[in-house]
């Protein structure tokens, strides 16, 4: 009978923290080569090996090793990497160059943008303040772009477009596409080029945190009450979702949320160090350059009814659906092409397998044609902040969507 190899078996079961007594780890820790590790800091059981009073060594090389070992042990005390560690991180320098960040933005600030509030609660060393500024800039630039480019969009679609451009999911995807790696656990000895945050404990219920929100909306506990779209502008965030309160200290955050905070913090850091034009350029290059088909964000429930109300509001003639062409009415695959006409103007056209379906599609096309109107030569208000900007001409402001 073969004996079970206990050593190997236990190493797969136990976490790295519990294996501090293994000889390899003692060796690694003593030589202090854990500088770029993403593993959790080992609890210093062997820290008594070298006392601070051994200054009598003549061997310069050995003294250098001892000093660096002491320095690294000091680093274990901090919740996030010290500021001067940013200058020695290859990962951080590579990230700085990969994003083509302005040289006026020092790597120390980029390192600070990578430290989440859940990793280091001290506001002087985490990215919370930078992220707040970056979030405001992001939402401002995105909103003015959407409102000026598509002045007739319904509010719910604006919320969805805002979410698609600057929502946490998109920002997390951007951080992934920038090649930002996550540290397993935050700590002073971790490479400053890694995103550091305390993770949510496995198995914890995320919906509890959203329930515990601090929205200013009155009667927020009444879940069954109808929430109007207009009230979402006043009480909710830029995506039409309820505002969540700040995370209580000690709790972790999801990787998505931490990545989104990092991207916002980078935006804020660029604004602070390189100024407004650089921040705007960064926004245009990284956010506006993403592909979003606004026509696919609409979800109509009754397009024919909406179109009738819209025509009544705009004093158009009542829309009428007419068959333009058809084939195989009695066959297994009939196709009807239906146009919606207001007087002599064709508002939209659609093809479907039944007359009802074709009419719905035609009404949908007509409504999208109205809502997706985009003026030529769009200018946004923030373009007036540039030097030598032409005088401002008011942009087109629409009545808004029809109320049914």
């Amino acid at each position: 009978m073969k004996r079970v190899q206990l050593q190997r078996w236990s190493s797969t079961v136990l976490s790295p923290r519990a294996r501090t007594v293994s000889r390899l780890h003692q060796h690694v820790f003593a030589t202090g080569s854990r500088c770029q590790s993403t593993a959790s800091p080992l609890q210093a059981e062997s820290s008594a090996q070298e006392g601070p009073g051994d200054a009598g060594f003549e061997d310069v090389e050995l003294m250098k090793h001892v000093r660096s070992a002491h320095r690294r042990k000091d680093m274990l005390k901090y919740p996030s990497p010290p500021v001067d560690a940013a200058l020695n991180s290859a990962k951080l320098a590579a990230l700085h160059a990969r994003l083509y960040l302005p040289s006026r933005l020092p790597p120390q600030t980029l390192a600070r943008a990578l430290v989440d509030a859940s990793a280091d609660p001290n506001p002087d060393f985490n990215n919370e303040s930078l992220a707040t500024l970056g979030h405001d800039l992001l939402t401002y630039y995105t909103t003015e772009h959407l409102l000026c480019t598509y002045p007739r969009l319904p509010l719910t679609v604006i919320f969805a477009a805002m979410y698609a451009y600057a929502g946490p999911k998109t920002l997390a995807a951007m951080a992934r596409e920038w090649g930002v790696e996550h540290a397993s656990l935050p700590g002073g000895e971790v490479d400053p080029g890694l995103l550091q945050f305390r993770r949510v404990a496995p198995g914890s219920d995320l919906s509890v945190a959203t329930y515990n929100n601090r929205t200013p909306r009155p009667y927020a506990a009444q879940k069954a009450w109808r929430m109007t779209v207009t009230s979402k502008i006043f009480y909710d965030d830029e995506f039409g979702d309820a505002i969540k309160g700040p995370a209580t200290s000690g709790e972790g955050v999801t990787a998505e949320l931490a990545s989104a905070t990092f991207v916002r913090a980078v935006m804020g850091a660029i604004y602070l160090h390189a100024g407004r034009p650089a921040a705007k350029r960064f926004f245009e290059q990284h956010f506006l350059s993403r592909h979003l088909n606004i026509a696919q964000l609409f979800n109509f429930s009754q397009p024919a009814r909406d179109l009738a109300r819209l025509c009544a509001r705009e004093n158009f003639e009542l829309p009428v659906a007419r068959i333009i062409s058809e084939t195989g009415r009695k066959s297994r695959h009939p196709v009807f092409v239906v146009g919606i006409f207001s007087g002599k103007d064709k508002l939209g056209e659609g093809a479907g397998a039944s007359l009802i379906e074709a009419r719905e599609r035609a009404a949908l096309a007509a409504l999208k044609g109205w809502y997706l109107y985009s003026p030529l030569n769009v200018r946004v208000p923030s373009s007036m902040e540039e030097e030598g900007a032409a005088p401002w001409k008011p942009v087109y402001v629409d009545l808004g969507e029809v109320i049914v």
Partner: protein
Amino acid sequence: MPVKGIKTVAAARNGVGAFILQCKRLDFHYCNYGGSSRGMLAFLTQTLPNFARENPQIEIRVSPRHSKHPIIKGHYINGREKSICVRNLEPNDILAKAMILKDASGEKLKVQKKPVTSLNESVRGIWSPYHGDLRGV
């Protein structure tokens, strides 16, 4: 509610605005003893500093790998790795291999059948049998 919004994520188009180099890390492994690493050792001392200076967006790691052939390993943003064995190669050839890894996207190599792949709809539209003149057969 007349119309609802559908929540999506805007798709990335690398290079339309900013361009992110997909190679994020290059590992250079060499052996101090083996003869196949002779060119690699020369490359590391002569060519690599300049290469690193020209490509600051790549993190470069140099580490010995005892009694093994020298290799270059590229780590990519999509999470994949590519490695090239550079045994017995001259420094210039090793530089060419490093450039291959640097320019790669990290994806598996595949045959590109279409001249253009795009997220945008076709400008001309899809041909419809129900529009235009009907012709008798």
